[in-house]
């Protein structure tokens, strides 16, 4: 690998890694499905790498990457021709704005979440670990637990809300007065 290629590669990696989680949140907020999010993220990563200009700075890369993500989500919806409701482009822009604002606090959120997870009852933690393990389908997990998929979905939802409230409380307490 030539030095210039390596330098381009390293520079791209740094910029992409800074944005990857934000892009993932943005894509998921538009497509809902974990599988679709992964598929579109792969396309986004490929497009960004192919068209990457090494002169791009951090701010310009973020703006460009969100533009590419927006286009890839639109293309994905168009190509799949899914007969379902799709957000209008105004909502795309509003969501991108929120993701970029909230992303400044991602690291603090992660730390707060870690603390909140430790406070959960063990059966809730067990359920989370099972439900979020790679490749697990809620339907088969529900069979294992002798519960309906709907009951598992609802329990996971309640746990997410508990964690959201807990992390919000920690982050609010940590804010400078």
């Amino acid at each position, binding site marked *: *690998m030539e030095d210039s*290629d390596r330098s381009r*590669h390293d520079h791209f*990696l740094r910029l*992409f*890694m800074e944005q*990857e*989680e934000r892009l*993932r*949140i943005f894509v*998921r*907020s538009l497509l*809902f499905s*974990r599988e679709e999010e992964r*598929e579109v993220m*792969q*396309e986004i*990563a*490929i497009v960004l*790498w*192919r*068209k*990457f*200009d090494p*002169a791009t700075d951090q701010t310009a890369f973020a703006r460009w990457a969100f533009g590419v993500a927006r286009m890839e989500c639109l*293309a994905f919806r168009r*190509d799949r021709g899914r007969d*379902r*409701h799709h*957000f*209008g482009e*105004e*909502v795309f822009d509003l*969501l991108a704005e*929120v993701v970029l604002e909230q992303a400044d606090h*991602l690291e603090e*959120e*992660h730390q707060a*979440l*870690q603390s909140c*997870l430790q406070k959960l009852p*063990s059966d809730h*933690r*067990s359920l*989370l*670990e*099972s439900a979020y*393990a*790679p*490749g697990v389908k809620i339907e*088969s997990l529900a069979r*294992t637990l002798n519960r309906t998929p709907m009951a598992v*979905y609802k329990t996971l*939802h309640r746990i*997410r*809300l*508990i964690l*959201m*409230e807990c*992390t919000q409380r920690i982050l609010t307490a940590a804010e400078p007065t």
Partner: protein
Amino acid sequence: MKITDPRFDLIRRCHDGEASPAELAELEAHLREDPSFRNAYVRYIQMDLSLGRMAPQHSKPQTGPIQSAHLASSWRWIPAMAAGLVLGMFTTSLIFAFSERNPATPTQITKLGDGGFGERIGKVPSGFPPAFGLWSGDDSEFVRNDPQGGPPALRFVRAERESMLPSAGAGSCDVYQLIDLSALKSKASSGEATLSLSVQFRDARASEGETVRFIARIYLFSGAPDSIQAGWPLNRREALAIGSNQIDSRGGSPDSRSHVTAQVFLPPLADFALVHLIANKPDFRAPTNAQATFGEQFIEEVQLTLKTPLAPPPAISRR
């Protein structure tokens, strides 16, 4: 927005794929008109992604009760691990199925050693492959012809526990082959070549039974194979890129074949590939030390193809 707000249930229904078109339209209206709902919606998505990211990625899907003693350490966000995790997620991001929107053409076909299992017969060597071009792995065997008269094949026999994960039950029968990529270095230098792993599986059960999942994976690594051999499979996150695809079978069509293709972006730094083919029983639940058995599941053909794009990447103007 308080978590008691009933609109959180709307988010859940959309998130879990239960929402009607009218509810999706309602969600969009709230997103457009209410900034606090928008913030809450993005936080909910972020929470879901964070939980997925913090889950223990090294484990196989859990299907039984989980000991809480394991959880304290597994559900921990460890800053020192974050960089590696992010890099791992990035390389995973480069797993992709080459779509119609990105037309590619095969320019070179690299056949795996023994890709068709033509001349060999008997047990597949146990453990991690000792050299390039050799199949090895869990309990499996080369068969010249299966009872229905099919082509030469590799037959999955029995799952084995991972030596690095001795406390886990075994639902997967894994076989491996190492591929030397040094001859492809010049092709990889553009950063746009892809490797396509295509595998023909067969489930010869005459009647339907429990689900068997056939998985085709390809990992790309830099360095020498012995650097990963000792720590396999816990060190698979060190891969530069991973391609994976799978198909489920319940049997009942012994003459049909399942084709699984996994594609992966070929980074210029890749020195070798590890092909990993799996027969897995996803519903297998058993106490420690139990091993799933197979016997009627086969790999009939494996092919690795290098693909390069038709056209050079579009130029980008410098500011």
